[in-house]
């Protein structure tokens, strides 16, 4: 009996498990094919117009000839480098505002005043529902009043950008807070003698670093691509510069080369941010 039982068990289980395993493998293969298909379709949807744009910018004056003139001309615009610089500074400043104000505030709310989180969520997501043009209508009198007394550089845009970036940063940070057991970790730290500042700085922040990085990437992406607020408040950033270049030049190729360069610039910057953050996360 004892010798028969394992064989009988095997006989019973084998036919059931083998098809299940192959079924699972088949499903996984189908899922992978679907995944690659979707990825390819969306990739083509985004990349084809960009490739067409780059191709157009590389066309020479004669049909069938190629030239990089439209790309070399970019640097000949005197204001462009300044615009790039100011946009980068704006990205850094806006990220700093998010990092200094929003990150600790959300952690504090999670740890100490959770009952207020609904109201804060509503406030943080509100800019999503307000069109940029409406925001400008509200911000313009404030900026004008200040400008009447002090000359403001385009760097002042960071307050408006911090508001615009708030919903994206909020979602990224909340996802990070949801991913860790803040209550237990903070209580463990406090029982070991940590004050609230230490709990936030040494325990919670290091564990939500990927979320902070995501918030920074989203904020930077928003600042690098922002056009409406800067244009309507009469400031010059990268996007408005590109717009002015496109209006001034007779060469349509320059219009496309500058747009492609701006995209490439933003892409490379975000990649650097992401890689730097990942390396820190690994450490």
């Amino acid at each position, binding site marked *: 009996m004892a010798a028969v039982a394992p064989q009988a068990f095997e006989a019973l289980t084998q036919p059931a498990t083998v098809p299940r395993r192959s079924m699972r493998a088949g499903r996984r293969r189908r899922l992978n094919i679907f995944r690659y298909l979707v990825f390819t379709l969306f990739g083509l949807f985004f990349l084809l117009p960009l490739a067409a744009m780059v191709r157009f910018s590389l066309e020479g004056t004669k049909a069938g000839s190629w030239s990089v003139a439209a790309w070399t001309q970019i640097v000949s615009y005197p204001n462009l480098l300044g615009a790039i610089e100011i946009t980068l500074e704006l990205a850094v400043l806006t990220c700093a505002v998010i990092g200094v104000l929003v990150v600790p505030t959300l952690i504090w709310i999670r740890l100490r005043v959770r009952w207020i989180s609904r109201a804060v969520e509503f406030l943080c997501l509100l800019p999503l529902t307000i069109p940029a043009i409406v925001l400008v209508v509200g911000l313009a009198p404030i900026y004008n009043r200040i400008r009447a007394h002090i000359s403001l550089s385009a760097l002042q845009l960071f307050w408006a950008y911090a508001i615009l970036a708030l919903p994206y940063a909020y979602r990224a940070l909340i996802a990070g807070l949801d991913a*860790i*057991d803040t209550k*237990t*970790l903070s*209580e*463990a*730290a*406090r*029982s*070991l*003698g*940590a*004050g609230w500042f*230490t709990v936030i700085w040494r*325990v919670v922040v*290091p*564990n939500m*670093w990927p979320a902070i990085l995501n918030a920074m990437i989203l904020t930077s992406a928003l600042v690098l691509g922002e056009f409406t607020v800067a244009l309507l408040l009469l400031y010059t950033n990268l996007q408005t510069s590109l717009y002015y270049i496109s209006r001034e030049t007779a060469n349509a190729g320059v219009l496309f080369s500058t747009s492609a360069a701006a995209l490439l610039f933003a892409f490379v910057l975000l990649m650097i941010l992401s890689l730097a953050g990942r390396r820190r996360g690994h450490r």
Partner: protein
Amino acid sequence: MTSPVTEAHSAQSRAGVEVRLQGLRRQYGQVVALDGLDLTIGPGELVALLGPSGCGKTTTLRLLAGLEDADNGTITVGGKDITHQSASKRDMGMVFQAYSLFPHMTVRENVAFGLRLRRISRAERDRRALEMLELVGLSTQAGRYAHQISGGQQQRVALARALAIQPQVLLLDEPLSALDAKVRAQLRDQIRRIQLEVGITTLFVTHDQEEALAIADRVGVMQDGRIEQLGPPTAIYSRPATAFVAEFVGLTNRLVGTVSGSSVTVRGRDLPLVDLSTPPGPVTALVRPEAVTLASDSSGGSGPLTGTVIAITFLGATSRVTVDLGDTTILAQLATSDATALSAGSRVTLTIRPDPVLVSGAPAVTEE
């Protein structure tokens, strides 16, 4: 490595402090979590709070840790009133139910965290962290992260981290509940061994009676924010003060009986009463399964203590036998060697050992 636990680890050799909770009250909205709780834990003593969910045991521990504030009452540790002191200044080590290691730190860094906050030099905190890890048998895992070690190991690291700061009191909030049975038993014994070696005053909260009875010097059984009974494990089990304690700790047969004088008559047998002031009349007697013994009945006779085996549950060294007495069923706990002679359907005669029993008021009327 650590020395084995010996008799030398007596209460006298412990260096812990006394913890006194007086009239603690905590209310959440309309729910009273603690209703004037009084508890004194002696120096170096391990007291386990046992009770069903929502009885207030975790609230008691959190109030002692300073993670919540009491509405009323006082907490004194070593004679010092710490009722309004913040958690970070209470000098208490705590092990949580959920895994609480800091994920971004290695095992060694986790254990050294509290020492770092106390501004102890790097060399000294590394030495003490390794010493603590040796105490819990994990010195080889010092360089690993929490996600690289098992749940049982994580709780041992949490214990080492809590002990590294040399706290006055150790608080254990169901630290074994997320672990599998074997690891749980091993870690339970390890906690007790270390607690005795260190001699630290400890409050252990659990809903697992086996855990509480095995580990504690004294067990407090809680219900509705109050301690129903506080005493040594043997007293809690064999001399429960209330029907709730009798039913919560261990298994209990509820048998109809009649009180007369100092005894209760259950199915024709007179059993002594725990509470001699019980008024005469019909009651439900609470009889432990191990007070019931069985013998095969080949005569085929009938009587109030004759029945048919309907199930035998193998529990290892012991087996639990369910016997149908016609009007009720009764559980008996026997040595497995005795239970092997029985099988489902066999007729048996029961004997109830005349241990003092508790009664819980008039028996419920069952509708046929």
